[in-house]
Every structure is written in C-alpha cells, then in structure tokens.
C-alpha cells in the first residue's frame, strides 16, 4: 500500500525542485542585523534611504541578504529596495558571489577643478594602495574645489591632497569627518525669525521685502524667490519647505561655505521661509559629502528644539552620492525613499511636491540671504549688484587663479574682474584662456568673452549660463578637449538614466569625443535632442559642453 514510488513522474523532471520559497530568502542572521538598525516599526517607506545608510555605516556595505532582510521588515520587495540602493554611489552592494568592499574607502575627486590640480596623478600614485584593506575609487566633486585636489579617506576629507598626505591619514586611522569648529555663540542668531514669531514681521512684509530685494533662487535657476512663495501660498495646506543642500555642480562650494561658517543664518532663513508659507514640515536634504555639516546641523536643530520656539517639524536627511538629487524634484523623490528621478512638470513642486504636498524648494544660499535682507533692508541687498544686476552673489571660484574660494562679489561682475580683483589674478605661468561660468553645466566660454557681466540671463546668448555661479578658470596650459571629456564623463556618470536623450546622449557624446575629428553635424543633432527633449536640466544642459567647445574652440577638436 505504501509503495507509491512506482508511480512515474508525468513531467520530464529536467530540473530539481526548490528548497525554499522563490528567490532569495533572508536568513535569521540578516533579519536580526537589520532589525537591530531599524528600531521599532512602523518602518515608513520614505525612510528607505536612511535605513540603507544605517546598514552601510554599520556593516561597511550592504549585502544582498541585508536587502532581502530590509525588504522583509519594510514589507517591500527586494526590487523596490535594490533599485533605490543601487542608484547611489555611496552605497556598496555586494551579492553572495561578490566580495564586500575593503574596510576603508578612499574617494579621490576627479571633477574638473581637482583634475586641473592633478587628480589623475594622485590616483596613479595611489593605485598601489588599492587592495584588500583599502580601496581607491574615483568620485565626483566634493565641494572643496578651492583646495584641490581632494581625497576623502573614510569620511575625512584631505584637501590639497598628495599621496603622502592620504597615506598619512590612512595610517593614522584619520577617517572621521573633521569636526566643524563649534558653532560660535551668537546672541543675534534667529533674531529675525524671532521677530516673525513675535509679530514684528508679517508674512506679507517679509515676502514684500524679499521681493523688493530681488532675491533669486541661487541654486542655479534664478527664479524670483518671493514669486515662488506666492505660488506655494496659493495651494492648500499642509505645505512643506524643502531645503536643497545638495550642491553637487562641479566647482560649486558656496553652500558648504555658508553651512560651515554661518549655519544658524541658513537655518534661520529656512525657518522664516517655512513660517512665511505656513509650512508644517521643514526638510533639509544635505549631500553626503558634507558629514561635518550634518553633525553640526543635527546638533543645532536639537538646540533649536530645546529653545522652546514654535517650530515646524524639522527633518534632516542625508544624500548618498548622486548629483541628480540637487535637481529639486529628484531631491523630493530621494526624500520620499524612491529612485531620485526628476519628475515631469507640470505639476510643479509648488503644486505637487514632497509627499504630494505643495512644496517650496530653496537652495541654501537663497535662504541664507533672507535674514540678512530682513535685518538690513531690501535696498541694502539689491544695491550690491552692478551692470544692471541686483544683489551680491557668492561665486565659487576655482581653477587656475591664485586665490580660489567663495568670493562675495556683486552680481553682474565680469570674470575678468573676478579674477583680477577677487582672486589675485591668474596662477603664475598661466594665461587666462577660457572659463566655465556655471560649473559643468554652464558651458565653456573663451577669454574673449571675459567681460560679459555674470548673471542670470546675460550668458544665454553666448550658449552658456551662470547657474550656481561656479566659476572655473582655465588657462592656456589646459587641454580643452580633455576638459570637455571630463565634464561629459561626469554627466554620463550622474545621469539618472530616465530619459533617452540624456541616458544615451551623454554616453554617446562621451564616445564621440574620442574621435580625432569631432562629427560636427551629429553633435549638433545630438545637442538639439538633448536640449529639446531631456526631462530635466541635466540632460538639457549637458550639450553645452560640446556645443560651446565647437563654437568657440573648433581647433581643439580637429
């Protein structure tokens, strides 16, 4: 009766049966490890990136098992976790058949300013250090272009880096972020915000003052700040303020400067803007390249909470190595725990923003100026511009100048004045030949256009733009074709991959740049489709690189 084994299998039985349910199953160990990092449920979807950071930080990488376990705890699928985790450069995923990364990672910035300062030589010199204990990897702009080249040993940034100094840091185990000097006690901090709370300022008066000052979005778009407030105010509550502290445009470091030197002013500006639009939530999205700022802000936010002021719900979030998150809608997606793909517009974030709520997204510097404007008046701000421009501007200057750094100068200044008056002139042995007025995106202009006022709207006719005012100065010593290649490689690395013109276009452009003789006609067509049909500014601006080079330096590509 028992012998049923004589019954033949009606199938062919080519394969063996599975021992578990379908797909990778989290082990008890990985479930425990991840649970220990998550804390108590509920584990909200929008915290996904924060959880991934927690795993990466605790385990120096994220195993496929961790992903399975995290998915289990968050009631997500593995695909939902992996698509987010694999997007970010600072998360190291390893599958069962792959090795976990070495205990220490050294990232060497290879963006343009560092490249000009010898990043390649540094990478070459460190090549032998790459091994089981330390790995040496390339990374994009770390926002320290005034002290190029830069290497990050663990979370410690070595500026003006040499192989010796990097090895010294490795040997000393100097891998923690340089602690920001204690934020200096400042009795006047938050005075303007307090005036708002006290009713000395009204939301209307604040907005009017900001409008009269002519404050524009200084992340790169230059949209009038007060008008944006109005748009958000026209939408129903609950509203959100999202602070974009994800400056990643190569050559840009002004936001880091303000966050390091006057973080309270930045927070105060944010609180005032949140108050003016009656936002319930204030999110700060800070790039992962600024760990010292993260620590300082966390502390300062705690102090603010302890101060008893009426505050919105302040949430500090951490990027994970993705330039695209500086694009405001991609930033919102990142905060929501999704793949940070820029959104289609319309609707605009002011209408449908973070978690679907009307959202005011502002750059750090824009907010930094708000309390100053309230304190000193709209005219004080507006009058600082020259050549028809309004306001001061924080230029991040790097490249072949003598004294690079954040230069507070009038909007409308020319690059030649900037070099001569603010940067001590060109480095010895270098003659001014070309410049990037707006980081990697803003195009490459010749020295012959060195007297054009730098501001929103002044450079467009020349095929360029000011963007975040990251001015990279090039000299007669520089190989412009190599410069263009460096920029395009950056865009290809940082393209989110969502739309064809950008995903495929940046990659094809990079390959096409290797041709001895560039194909002008094909580049022109490529430039047009990228500019016309890319979803966001990254793909729309990337062709500036080859278009301006072909326009102003055709001899460089023949």
């Amino acid at each position: 009766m028992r012998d049923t084994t004589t019954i033949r299998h009606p199938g062919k039985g080519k394969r063996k049966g599975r021992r578990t349910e379908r797909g990778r199953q989290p082990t008890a160990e990985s479930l425990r490890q991840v649970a220990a990092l998550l804390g108590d449920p509920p584990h909200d979807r929008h915290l996904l990136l924060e959880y991934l950071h927690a795993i990466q930080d605790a385990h120096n990488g994220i195993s496929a098992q961790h992903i399975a376990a995290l998915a289990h705890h968050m009631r997500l699928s593995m695909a939902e976790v992996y698509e987010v985790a694999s997007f970010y450069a600072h998360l190291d995923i390893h599958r069962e058949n792959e090795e976990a990364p070495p205990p220490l990672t050294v990232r060497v910035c290879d963006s343009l300013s560092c490249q000009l300062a010898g990043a390649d030589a540094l990478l070459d010199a460190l090549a032998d250090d790459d091994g089981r204990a330390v790995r040496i990897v390339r990374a994009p702009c770390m926002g320290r272009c005034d002290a190029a080249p830069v290497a990050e040993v663990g979370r410690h940034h070595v500026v003006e880096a040499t192989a010796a100094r990097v090895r010294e840091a490795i040997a000393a185990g100097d891998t923690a972020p340089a602690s920001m000097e204690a934020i200096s006690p400042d009795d006047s901090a938050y005075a303007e915000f307090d005036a708002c709370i006290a009713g000395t300022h009204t939301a209307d008066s604040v907005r009017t003052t900001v409008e009269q000052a002519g404050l524009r979005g200084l992340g790169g778009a230059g949209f009038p700040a007060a008008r944006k407030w109005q748009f958000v105010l026209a939408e129903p509550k609950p509203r959100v303020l999202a602070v974009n502290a994800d400056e990643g445009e190569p050559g840009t470091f002004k936001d880091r400067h303000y966050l390091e030197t006057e973080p309270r002013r930045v927070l105060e500006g944010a609180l005032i803007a949140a108050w003016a639009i009656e936002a319930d939530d204030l999110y700060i999205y800070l790039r992962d390249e600024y760990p010292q700022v993260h620590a300082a802000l966390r502390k300062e936010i705690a102090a603010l909470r302890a101060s008893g002021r009426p505050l919105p719900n302040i949430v500090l979030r951490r990027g994970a190595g993705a330039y695209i998150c500086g694009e405001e809608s991609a930033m919102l997606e990142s905060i929501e725990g999704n793949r940070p793909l820029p959104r289609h517009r319309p609707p605009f974030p002011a209408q449908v923003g973070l978690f679907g709520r009307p959202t005011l997204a502002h750059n750090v510097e824009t907010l930094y100026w708000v309390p100053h404007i309230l304190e000193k008046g709209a005219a004080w701000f507006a009058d600082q511009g020259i050549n028809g421009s309004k306001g001061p501007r924080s230029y991040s200057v790097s490249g072949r100048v003598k004294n690079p750094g954040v230069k507070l100068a009038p909007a409308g200044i020319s690059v030649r004045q900037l070099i001569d008056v603010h940067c001590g002139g060109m480095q010895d042995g270098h003659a001014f030949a070309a410049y990037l007025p707006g980081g990697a995106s803003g195009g490459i202009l010749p020295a012959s256009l060195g007297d054009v006022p730098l501001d929103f709207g002044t450079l467009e006719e020349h095929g360029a733009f000011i963007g975040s005012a990251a001015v990279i100065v090039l000299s007669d010593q520089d190989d412009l074709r190599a410069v263009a290649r460096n920029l395009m490689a950056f865009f290809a690395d940082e393209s989110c991959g969502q739309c064809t013109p950008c995903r495929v276009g940046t990659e094809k452009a990079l390959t096409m740049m290797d041709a001895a003789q560039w194909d002008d006609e094909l580049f022109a067509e490529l430039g047009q489709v990228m500019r016309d049909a890319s979803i966001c500014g990254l793909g729309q601006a990337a062709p500036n690189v080859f278009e301006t080079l072909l326009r102003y330096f055709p001899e460089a590509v023949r």
Partner: protein
Amino acid sequence: MSVRFTLDGKPVEAGDDETIWQVAAREGVAIPHLCHSTAPGYRPDGNCRACMVEVEGERTLAASCIRKPTEGMTVHSATDRAATARKAVMELLLADQPPRDRAYDPNSAFWDMADANGIEASRYPASLRPDPDTSHPAMTVRLDACIHCGLCVRACREVQVNDVIAMAHRGPHSEIVFDVGDPMGASTCVGCGECVQACPTGALAPAKDALLQEIDRTVDSVCPYCGVGCQLTYHIKDNALVHVSGRDGPANHGRLCVKGRFGFDYVSHPQRLTTPLIRKEGVAKAVQPDVDPSNPLTHFREATWEEALDVAAKGLREIRERKGGKGLAGFGSAKGSNEEAYLFQKLVRAGFGTNNVDHCTRLCHASSVAALMETIGSGAVTAPFAEVKNTEVIVVIGSNTSVNHPVAATFFKNAVKNGAELIVLDPRGEALGRHATHMVQFRPGSDVALLNAVMNVIVEEDLVDHNYIGGYTEGFEAMRTHLKAFTPEAMSEVCGVPPDTIREIARIYGRARSAMIFWGMGISQHIHGTDNARCLIALALMCGQVGRPGTGLHPLRGQNNVQGASDVGLIPMFYPDYAGVEKEGVRERFEDFWGAKLDPKTGLTVVEITDAIHDGEIEGMYVMGENPAMSDPNLNHTRAALAKLKHLVVQDLFLTETASYADVILPASAFPEKDGTFTNTDRRVQLGRRALPLPGDARQDLWIIQEIARRIGLDWRYGHARDVYAEMRACMPSIKGITWERLERESAVTYPCDAEDHAGREVIFGDGFPTPTKRGKFVPAAIVPPDEETDAAYPFILSTGRLLEHWHTGAMTRRTDVLDDLEPEAHAHLAPNDVEALGLAGGELVRLSTRRGSIELAVRIDSGIPEGMVFMPFCYAEAAANLLTNPALDPFGKIPEFKYCAAKIEPLRA
C-alpha cells in the same frame, strides 16, 4: 470638464484626464511612441521621448503621452523641431539594438516605430551590451535589446504588482534587474509573463525564440485553468500553439498568469491518448495505479472507436439492466465546457436513470454553495471580483489568491494601491499578505470562532446596518443572541488572534461604506465549511454589504468552469439552473423537456459514491475528465473503490491515475481543440474557440458522450456545441439573453441576462434575494472542532492545496514543460523553525504520514507556513497528498476536510 486647445491648427477638445497623445490618436494624428502602451492598466511614463511635440511658448518640447493639454494651448505635432527630436531618439536607441535581421521580436513595436520615423540605421557608436539570461524556463532575457522604456517595470510592479522587476543603477548603467540583480530564474519571478507581453523590443521574450516563428493564424479563446476566466489569444503555426498572449477580457484586461501564458504544450505531450483503449483480458486492476502513461499497452489494447464505444456502453447498459440506475454513477468535470457538462448530466439522468452525477465542485465550494443556497437562495457570486475597484475594504479569507487566482489577485493589489484596505485572514502567510493593510494569521480550523467574534464586535458596537437588516434579512434577533457568547476575548483563546485585532478588523469592515468578501478552499474544505460560509454571509448581511457597487460575497471558483458545470446541473441535487431534483414539479418539467423518465431522488456526491462502490451498490462508472484517484480524500480508499468497479469508462486526454483502473479509455479533446462556453467565477459566460485539430484519433467530448448515449438508448443528434447550448438556453432562464451568436460577437456576457439586448447583471441582489421570503437568512454557526485533531503521535496539522504552477491533479500542468520545470517535485512545506527543530535542511527527504497513509518527499522551507503545520500540494502523483487526507465530510456540502488532519513527519536519512 473638457479642455479646448489647438492641435496642428485644428481646434480640439480633451476630456479631463486625456493626454495630448490620446487626443491626437482620437483625432487620427499618429504620434510615435515606445514607452507608452495603450494596454489597459499602463500609465504613461514619458521617459523615451519618442512622442515629443511642440507646445507654443514653451522652452522645450513636451512628451505628448504624459502631458495634459490646458485651455487655449497650441500644440504642433509635426514641426521640424519635434520630428527631428523624435528621429534622434529613435536613432540613439537604434545604435544599441541588435540588427533588424537578428531582432528578438521581428514584429516588435520598436521596429514599427523606427519605420514610422523613417530610421533604418544609426550613426551613433554602439556600446557594450549585456549577456543574455536564459535561467528561466519560460522567458529569455536579452537586455542588449533593452531600450529602458520601463514598460516591464510597470508590468511587474503596477499592473500585476509582483514587484520583481526594477530599473537598477543609473544613467547609462541603468539596467533592468530581477530582485537584487539575480538571474530571472533564481528570482522571486512568478512567471506571469506580463513583462514579455509589454516589452516593445523582444528583450524580454518567451523562451525558445517563440516570437521568431512566423504565425499562420491566431484564435481568440479563454484560459483553460482557474476560475478567473482570462481571455487569451493562441498564436498558431502549422496547427501547433507557438505562444499565448492575454486579451482584453472583462476578467483579465490582457493579464495572464504563468499557467495561462506558458502552460499550453500539454496538448501535444507525447503521452496524449490518441486511440481508444480496452483493458486486456485477464489484466487485473491493482489497488495503486500501476500503468505507465507512456506505455499503456502493458495493460490495454488499442481498439477502434466502434468497438470501444460498444464495450463502454455495453458494460453500463448491463449494470443498468441488472441493478437499475442506482448501480451507476458519472463524474463529469469542471474543466469541460458547459455543453459537455450539460450533456453529461443529461446522459446520467436520462440514460443511466440516476442522479448519481457529480464533479469536483464537491471537493471545492460545495459547502459555500450549500450555505449560499440556504441563506440567499443562489450559489453564485453576488458581484464580480472586478468590483474591488469600487470598494473600500477587501476581505480575503481562506484564499491564497495570488497562487490560486493569480490574475484576480492582481486586481486586489491594484485596488490596494488605489487606497482600498485589504484584510487577509488565513492561517498561512501568503504573497498577498505583503500588500495587506491587515494580515491576520489565525489557528487552522478556527474560522467560526474568529468570524463570530468579528460579528460579536459589530453587533455589540452597533456597527450593523439596521435598515438593511430590516429591509432584506430575517433571523437577525436569533443571530444577535447567538453571538453574545462569542466575545473577542473568549474567541481569542480559540483562534489565536488578539482581541484588539479582532476589534480592529471588525470596525474596519463594519464602518466601511463598501466592502467585499472573497473566500477560497480555506473556508470550504472543512467539516464546518458550510458553517464558515454561513458566518461570512451573515457578516455581509448584517452590514448590508451585498447588492451595491463595491460590495458582495465572492467565493473564488477554482476551476475554469466549476461555476458553469454546477449551473448546468452536473451535481446530484440539481437540474440545470439549480432546479431542485426533489422539488415539487421540477422533475416532471425535465421529464417532459428531455423526454425521459427521471430518478425522483437526489443522487450521491463524490465521496458518497466511493462509499457506495465499497458497499457494492455502485458497480459501473463513466468518468469524463475527472481524476478521483488523485483528487479525492483518503486515496487508498478511493483507489480501492475504483479498482473494485465492475465497469469503468474513462474519457480523458491522458492515461490518468483514474484511467489506470478503466475498462475502456476514450481519448478526448483538449481545451484548444473544441468550441464551447465556460462560465467563470464572476458568472461570465465566455466562448472558448477551437484553435487546433484533434490529434490522432482523439474525438470531441460531445461526440463521445453522444455516442455513448446512442448506445444506451438515447436518440441524440447534436451536431455542434451551439446546438447543445441552444437546448440549455431553453431550460435555463439565467442565460436567456445570451445567445451563441452573441457570444461569438462579444466573447463574454454575464448572467443573469434576461434579453439579448441587455447587458448581463454584474452586481446582483440589490433588491432582495431569490428566497421564498425574498430575504437573506441569518444562520448561526457554533464551533465544531476539526474531525481529526493533532495528538502526540500525529503532532502536525496537514493542510493541502495548490501551487501556482500546477492545477488540480496535475494531469495537464505536469505535462507542460515550463510548469514542470518550475515545480518538478512534491514538497512538504514547513515553517523554518519546524525544519530546524526536526534537524532538517531544505530539500531533505522525510516520510509524511497520517493514520491513512504515508508518503516520502522533500522538505521545503516556507516562511508562510505557521509552526505546527505542514502544507502539501495535491498534484503530485508520485507523492499524492490525498493518500493522507481525511475523508470526513461537512454534513451539508459533503465536502471533505482537506484543510486539516493530523500528521507526523519522520526525517529520512540516506
């Protein structure tokens, strides 16, 4: 509200949610598209940029597929600028495509669009492209043809909501991945193939280059498997099925599951019977099936149809003459068409002279139907599952929907994504659980305790719908009194669910403006199955959750035509349309209609027939497409009965375990080889269309039934299924308005349907029930413990059911390559902790025994199984779960307790 704008100089209007692309398409302006699909359920994504148009006053072009026009907007679809951008997009993508003469899908949307743009070649340099992934038996992944349109991601994540495919990494490194970048075949992929259907390039394609075969013709039909009733299209070359695609039917909207899409090659399996067989003289019937289906000639000899039919009929006739109709019985099948089922029951009733006719509904929803008939006077669902789109709260109990009704489950998941709450109640954790707003795992067999406690809360907290109770029900006061004792605290002890959880779900259901209840075999396959269903019906009645949009009671039907087979009378207590056999005047009506004397007594049910064989009462049987030697409980008992029969005629596609006991085997027609109507779980009558010729000397089932009928004295002359259907319509008011011609035209019509120009009624009983009082009846249920509880000797609860890949006894699915590759072996599914406690690892062999039998099989670690339970699929002949199951019956539905018996597990070490 509509929007007026100008498209290519022409004033046009757009509806509220219409995009520029949709308006253009409506206006006859063709705009190319790649990442946008017009298939139902796919939202536009706007990523490929192949559909760019120019909007006046805007700096950049706009993706017409995702952009909605605004009042006064001026759109140009055909400017040079737009056309240049669209061409450039195609040229960029083409650079990395395999050449056209090596395309993975030569008829792909991609190449159509390239043609539409006049692009033949690309000037852009090609990039390195990934290697193929052939790890999945059903699908080939060749991402060198991927254009990153994300349609497969939407297919997997938003349409079917299986959440396996993602776009990982970024930029030019973006890549379609499965899970954590795993090979498709090693991933959590459930093989639905929605991605293959969505892919515009063939990067994801059916395996074995099926898309490269030039198709001769296509035939629109229906899926032969579960009760969801997905419509599909067969793609045929040289009279063979090449591949299958989903069709936009009312139940599936283009979706299919792994069985429906990839499980079709059983029809051409080498074991297919193509010649009638007669048992050789002197070859005894062993108690266990002992015939190799590949080599039946050890036990049988080939015969002509004439001889086989004569022998088959003669044996039946002799028994009828000697013992009368009570000596005979017939098992029809829920896999056959309505026409086959109708004719089969008519044969048994009018020809054999008995009501001993039944089919696997007895093992399936018999108890649900018993409860529904008793309380609301109708055994069918009150609303189609598509109503979930209109509901606030979905309750799924005792149903592993994503395994057993996979496509229905996708619509549940869609509804959850759109904001519906989903309460899943089941002893097992299941795939649907991840999507549930409330996943409640309760103790096996404690359904009545849990449901009475839920109702106790609803009554105590006065969440009942007094108007509904007053207007449409009876017996509520007795119910209220009955429920008093079933407090959440008291019942928590029984069902293992915390009282607060019981309260929470009771409040959600009780307060919902609309709610639907779905249930499966977890409810019905208990000796208290009818009580379980009574509770669910009472719950819906007291809250007034029947008869309105977004409300309803829906027992999910297991087989493609279990609804229809019951509707047409393939059950011992009813004639067609649920006319009671013993009901006054009914028999006389059918005696007139059929021109035959009929047995006045209700017949025996499936398990009762087995017992009657053992008792010597039944000596002969005709089994059409049913496999009781696998599907019935306590198989040793069933098989001994089959072996004892003096005369057994089996009509089937294969030499099934049941056929091994046959005296005569008649080779029959497979689903794609015949025309017929099939009624899905929603009461939708759908037309299956013949796509293939019959193999060898196999015959149409209708023809075979008719030939048997003629040989036992019935002068039948049906030419085609439509003739049988016409007769059915004449005695079944429910399908009065559904003509064969209408079905040919519309493919599906829901009953009840009164007139040919009426749409069928989807949500029914808005104005009372077909009971004598027109009211729905509350029937209180008390707690009945399982028939065989666990003890020290048999400490595990054995529960049986299906796997996603296999259907019923596996006669068809185990003979399809893909499904066999995916689930080739029987496993005992155990909780991880139990596996560990037994000192086992996944894949190790155990002996699983109950008081009735013992089998040997491998262990599978399954985190969905609660500790103390072992789950086993019943489709594996070599480890037949039903050797172990308990034949104890529900007293009303006569359904066996497949979901609970006591078992023990002994590790087997080599």
